[in-house]
């Protein structure tokens, strides 16, 4: 084996990652070649120095920081989702309002919807023999329903946000 080939393989040799035959021929070469042996010693010394490098202990509470950080990111995400939902809702609501109040088609749809509901309630009133107060009934009923869902949505979003506000800050402050 040539010195060059031996030297190329010295680190792999030191790490014991060589196939047996190659390792044996390097052992054999090292016994008769002081230069390669010296180089092996040199590399082995460096490796030893790196292996005994002092690593300071990690002092901080990694777990608490990681959990706080994950929670914070979740809040940011829920804020994001909440605002997107709110935005979509506004656009939708705005669209409906525009459609209903500014277009004849919307007026027609509203009238159709109103009369349908009115008829259903009328039928219901007939069944239960309740006097018909349907026109007022429709408006009050739909406003209540909208408000109810609006409150539900806001409550859900706010609760999610408020629940997670009180967090430990980052470790490095």
């Amino acid at each position, binding site marked *: 084996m040539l010195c060059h080939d031996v030297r190329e*393989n010295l680190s792999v040799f030191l790490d014991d990652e060589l196939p047996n035959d190659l390792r044996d021929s390097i052992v054999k070469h090292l016994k008769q070649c002081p230069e390669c042996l010296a180089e092996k010693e*040199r590399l082995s010394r*460096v490796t030893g120095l790196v292996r005994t490098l002092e*690593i300071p202990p990690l002092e901080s509470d990694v*777990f608490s920081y990681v*959990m706080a950080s*994950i929670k914070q990111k979740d809040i940011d995400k829920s804020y994001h989702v909440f605002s997107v939902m709110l935005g979509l809702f506004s656009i939708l609501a705005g669209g409906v309002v525009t459609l209903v109040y500014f277009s004849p088609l919307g007026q027609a749809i509203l009238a159709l919807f109103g009369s349908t509901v009115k008829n259903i309630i009328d039928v219901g009133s007939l069944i239960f023999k309740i006097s018909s107060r349907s026109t007022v009934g429709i408006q009050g009923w739909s406003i209540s329903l909208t408000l109810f869902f609006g409150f539900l949505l806001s409550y859900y979003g706010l609760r999610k946000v408020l629940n997670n506000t009180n967090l430990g800050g980052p470790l490095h402050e």
Partner: protein
Amino acid sequence: MSTLQEIIRACQHGSTEAFEQLVRQYQQYAFKIAYGILGSDRDAEDTVQEAFIAVYRQIKSLRNEEAFPTWLGKIVTNLCFRKVQNSGKRPTVPLDSIEDLRISNTGPEEAYLALELKQDVHNALLNLPLDYRVVVVLRDIQGYSYSEIADIAGIPLGTVKSRIHQARTLLADLLQPTRNEEEGER
């Protein structure tokens, strides 16, 4: 005492207690790699924290529980790469200039390098080009096998071998510049 497999399974099912156990068990392990590569405890600490956030989010994708230490090593190493590349503080030395590095340290200033060897080791290590530093840290500080290093660093096995060898030769030159330079090839 739970086994690593049990801890990881529990983490995958969302157990915070298991995750806490996992963090406490492996934080120093991750810190060793980050500190070896970055050379600053503050940067290493940040990297370990980021690494465990990634672990928390991605642990469900880990199929083989036994591979966790290597997987964690990969996450930490990737984050270190990103950190070094993003910070202008310690720019990475391109691989081509490795010869220049060798030459620049054979001048008259070389004597001071031989001073306190122990203290110099990390400095010398930090002077290695990033790709070389990483393989030495993974091998000699963390004790990974060559095939694990190939997996972690995403390089072929042959490259791992040659890079470790070049890195050590370079380190030896940086730390012991007084050796006789006549490398007679027979």
